[in-house]
């Protein structure tokens, strides 16, 4: 579904991604771990199309399409979803209005009939229940006044509404208490299917207890230096990153 070949990306002339290679097939969950500054968030921003970053080399194919050639909104409409590490507050834009516009844009792209107001509200109620999000949160402006945990839940709610093929969860567990973590992980798991995949970016093993990965990759200094099964995450939890850094220092 997603094929990344030798991806290099920089910001302000500083190269952060220095040759990423990754392949993701439908139905797979890939975890990406790594020390701070290794380029995890940069990778998710570049895949989502954030214009702050410049891709200098390499290619990314998503469902046989050239992803790097698409505008951010088209990548989303193709089925890519990024759950932000720090979701931004947008006062004055109501959640309902925001979601309805987004959902209908997706439907237009797929040549489906846009939802009417009542159909849409029905959909919202269903998805709210699914991911256990509070009714109140959707009556307000996007993320306005939300706590960290509420913002993360809201990201998963949006994911449920948009039904992406590939979800990139950028440190979805940061700032969450144990209960919130459980709710978020449950939501992600409920949305899992043999046709959809996810990239779970995290520092900690505990999220991976709930969202069990098929593959674990370690990102260090802009490159994926080690890939293995879920045992790798446990090994990192035990030993830390030093042994990786020593092995791959350049």
């Amino acid at each position, binding site marked *: 579904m997603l094929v990344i070949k030798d991806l290099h990306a920089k910001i302000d002339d500083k190269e952060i991604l220095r040759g990423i290679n990754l392949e993701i097939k439908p139905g797979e969950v890939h975890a990406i771990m790594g020390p701070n500054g290794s380029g995890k968030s940069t990778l998710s921003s570049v895949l989502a199309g954030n214009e702050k970053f410049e891709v200098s080399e390499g290619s990314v194919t998503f469902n046989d399409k050239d992803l790097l050639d698409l505008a*951010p*909104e088209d990548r*989303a409409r193709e089925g890519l979803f990024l759950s932000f590490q720090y979701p931004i507050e*947008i006062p004055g*834009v109501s959640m309902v209005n*925001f979601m309805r*516009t*987004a959902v209908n844009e997706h439907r237009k792209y797929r040549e489906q009939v846009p939802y009417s107001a009542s159909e849409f509200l029905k959909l919202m109620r269903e998805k709210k229940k699914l991911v256990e999000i509070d009714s109140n949160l959707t009556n307000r402006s996007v993320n306005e006044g939300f706590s960290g945990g509420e913002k993360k839940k809201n990201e998963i709610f949006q994911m449920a509404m948009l039904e992406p093929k590939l979800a990139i969860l950028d440190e979805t567990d940061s700032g969450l208490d144990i209960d919130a973590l459980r709710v978020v992980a449950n939501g992600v798991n409920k949305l899992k299917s043999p046709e959809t995949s996810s990239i779970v970016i995290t520092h900690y093993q505990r999220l991976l207890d709930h969202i069990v990965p098929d593959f674990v990759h370690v990102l260090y200094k802009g490159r994926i230096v080690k890939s293995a099964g879920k045992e790798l995450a446990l090994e990192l939890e035990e030993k830390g990153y030093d042994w990786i850094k020593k092995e791959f220092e350049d």
Partner: protein
Amino acid sequence: MNVTCRVVNLQEEYSQLYKENYSLIESCAPEKMNTLRAKAFEVFNEKGIPSNKVEDYKYTNLQPYFKGTLDIAFSSEAAFNGSETKFNCDVPELDTHNVFLVNGWYSHQNEVNGLPTGVVVGSIREKAAEYPEVFEKYYGETNALDSDVMAAMNTAFAQDGAFIYIPKGVIVEKPIQLVNIMNGASDRLVFQRNLIVVEENAQAKVMLCDHTIAPHKFVVNNLTEVFANENSVFDVYNVQNQHNLTTQVSGIFVHQKKHSNILTNNLTLHSGVTRNNIRITMDDENCESHVYGLYLSDKNQHVDNFTFIDHAKPNCQSFELFKGVLDDSATGSFTGRVLVRPDAQQTNAYQSNNNLLLTENAKINSKPQLEIYADDVKCSHGATVGQLDDEAMFYLRSRGINQTEGRILLMFAFAYEVIEKIRVEPLKENIRALVEKRFRGEFDKCDSCVVCGQQGTSVSCL
């Protein structure tokens, strides 16, 4: 009959215009209107139309806009020009008590039904004769002349407008909507003078809708005096929806008595050159005032909101919020003067002006001006100028919303704070829809607005 005046040297021609037509101006006008004219004309003649050398008009030089060959109506027949058709306001259907004024004169086609007993809505000339004590007591008492030369010009020249009287204890549920239409076959100078009196314990809401329906240059000087007596609640919403060839100087002067609660909201959705003079005098204890404004400008438009909130007595509160979105080469200005006089203790005055500039050429001058002479007060002011938030835009795009739609959502989110302040639910919804249309470029200012289609580089289109 319309008098055509060719204005080149401003003062010379305006002075001549006044003197030559004085007998028409004063004929059938209420006595007090005429008594005040002499002093007003003196002030106007001495100071003249302000250029940007006058401090208060630093960002809006009115002189060029008051020149040209302009028609002026000195009678209602001249104002209507034989076109006494029934008008329809293009502000979406609202349930209001609706009256029309054309070129500053109250239309005789108006029929207002269903007003509560004792409420008067009519032509100021006519009602002054029917209610002389009220007129005598209130007309001119906001002392507008002393401060602003354009108010003096209005006092000298204006002959008609609207008169609204709400008796003690009466609550008018539906808004009273004054639709001010500028029309005609040639360029025109218009004066309009409104007087609104809200007696003790009364409540009312008024909408002033300014529209242009002909593609000529309109130069408008209007002034609305409002007297909000003890315990009254009064809202005035000024919706400006005029084409690029319009120059409007509009005054809303409010005088408050104790425990009154007033709200003004200037919604400048489309205009050429607008100068709004808003003055609130809290002449008694425990007054509350809400002064709001939203200005949406593009092309070469210019909106200047000049407010003056006078905390003359203690224990009063004022809340001021003006927000603007400027596109293309539009310019704007906000001056918020708040005066807290020496004995006005326990004053709370909050002021904020936020501006969104969408291009490099758009320009705003924001001047908060707090003069505080009492020591036990809470006053704050803030002004911001910014662009659309890149991060917010990326967030929207990452959800599949394209850039154009994203911009509209974000601009609307910005503007919404002022729309939220509208205290009349149906009106709030209508303005919300109009503002969204404005941002989408689906706005229809008037039937014949083809002239405004271009970038506006030619002199006539400002």
